[in-house]
């Protein structure tokens, strides 16, 4: 018997808001969370870059309890998001269900701030690193913390594929449920790499934006890095119906592949094939009902490549499809991008409102789709896609449909 996978809970902590409600408000209003901030180290190093940080959550983190105060920020953000998703789903994990629940939480880099702190302590102050350093930096820390916190004893691990991490986590978790290895799953991703060291490394690549993130705009000039986490509760459909859960969306399709081409330059062939794979088995009666939450990083190369990939898949219907890049508002959350952007796609479909691509100044002939410039608009969405095209040529696309 075919097992279908549905979404029964969502949780997020993002530069636009620390829960689903405030996140959606920010998206709908077209608010930008991008600011310029100075980062310092060792009392002598400093750099100032545009970023999308999360501020004022010290109390929220403290309320997570002692175990999480011993964790890196990326684990703390994951737990905030996962706790909200679990509450949203109404699910209660008894021993039997815990054993049948997967926990797949990805990250791009893991405990970056702990790593930075450790090196600074050693090299600048001649101190030893914190005794729990290793446990704080390992990429599987969020999945393990959630397993302990909620008694989850099914398949539990991290996935990592740079900007495609979140989408991969969701796709892999859905596959585990579909194959019968689990009945429920926490799936998502987290990133908190706004540290002096990490940002110097990003600056050294010469692809960060000077001021802000302008996806698809002719005057776009690069990435803005953000932090945050997004987690979904995925569930086998009959299991959800049996307990009277509210089904928020269905996982209609998932495409994953690799370009096999270049460590940084994206490929139209690879990206279009990933979108095609996600759309296999998805019926589209009216292309104007398709919303694509784009990868849309605002770099010179991604935006036209992604445009061509969408045109390759949708052909003449591409002009009817509606697209936007919410990275224009919340920045590029790296490993957590897929975690929060899949939620943006679902919220758009649920509310019938397409969040805009803000900071859009000037059309680029190479980017000629409907990107919902600067202002949200109403649209009856029947299929919502989330695109992720990562460094190293890794692509993952999730397709959601209405319950």
């Amino acid at each position, binding site marked *: 018997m075919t097992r279908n996978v549905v979404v029964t809970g969502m949780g997020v902590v993002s530069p636009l808001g620390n829960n689903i409600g405030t996140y959606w408000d920010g998206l709908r209003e077209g608010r930008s969370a991008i600011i310029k901030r100075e980062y310092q180290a060792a009392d002598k190093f400093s750099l100032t870059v545009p970023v999308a940080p999360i501020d004022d959550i010290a109390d929220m983190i403290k309320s997570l309890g002692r175990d999480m105060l011993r964790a890196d920020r990326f684990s703390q953000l994951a737990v905030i998001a996962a706790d909200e998703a679990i509450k949203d789903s109404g699910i209660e994990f008894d021993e039997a269900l815990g054993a049948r629940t997967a926990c797949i939480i990805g990250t791009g880099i893991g405990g970056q701030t702990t790593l930075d702190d450790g090196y600074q302590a050693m090299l600048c102050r001649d101190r030893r690193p914190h005794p729990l350093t290793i446990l704080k930096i390992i990429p599987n820390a969020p999945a393990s913390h959630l397993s302990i916190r909620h008694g989850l004893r099914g398949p539990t691990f991290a996935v990592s594929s740079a900007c495609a991490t979140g989408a991969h986590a969701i796709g892999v978790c859905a596959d585990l449920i579909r194959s019968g290895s689990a009945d429920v799953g926490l799936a998502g991703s987290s990133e908190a790499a706004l540290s002096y060291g990490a940002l110097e490394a990003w600056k050294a690549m010469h692809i960060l934006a000077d001021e802000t993130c302008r996806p698809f705009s002719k005057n776009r000039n*690069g990435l803005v890095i953000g932090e945050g986490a997004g987690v979904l509760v995925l569930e086998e459909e009959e299991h959800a119906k049996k307990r009277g859960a509210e089904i928020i969306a269905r996982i209609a399709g998932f495409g994953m592949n690799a370009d096999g081409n270049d460590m940084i330059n994206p490929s139209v062939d690879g990206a279009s094939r990933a979108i095609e794979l996600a759309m296999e088995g998805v019926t589209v009666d009216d292309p104007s009902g398709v919303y694509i939450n784009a990868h849309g990083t605002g770099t010179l190369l991604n935006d036209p490549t992604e445009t061509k990939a969408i045109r390759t898949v949708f052909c003449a219907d591409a002009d009817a499809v509606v697209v936007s890049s919410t990275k224009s508002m919340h920045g590029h959350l790296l490993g957590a991008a897929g975690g929060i952007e899949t939620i943006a796609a679902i919220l758009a479909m649920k509310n019938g409102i397409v969040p805009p691509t803000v900071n859009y100044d000037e059309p680029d002939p190479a980017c000629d789709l409907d990107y919902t410039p600067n202002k949200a608009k109403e649209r009856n969405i029947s299929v919502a896609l989330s695109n992720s095209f990562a460094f190293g040529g890794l692509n993952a696309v999730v397709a959601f449909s209405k319950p």
Partner: protein
Amino acid sequence: MAEYEASLLEIIKEHAVGLTGELNRDTPIADLGIDSFSVVEIIYEIEEKLNVEVPFNANENPFGDMATVGDLLDALDKLIKKK
């Protein structure tokens, strides 16, 4: 610029794995055998060895449409800042 030119050519030569002949301003970029990362690595080495800064944004394509090594040297000349 003249003060740097000899050093820049030295650094470029080290990365020019495909080069068979002489390296000078007229040498075509296509003959150097460099890939998309080479320009970034060459600039990094220039910054480290010459103690200068070469600020640029790859999204603004400052090194696009270069035909010769001379074009690359001219592009670098515009960007190099003494520290």
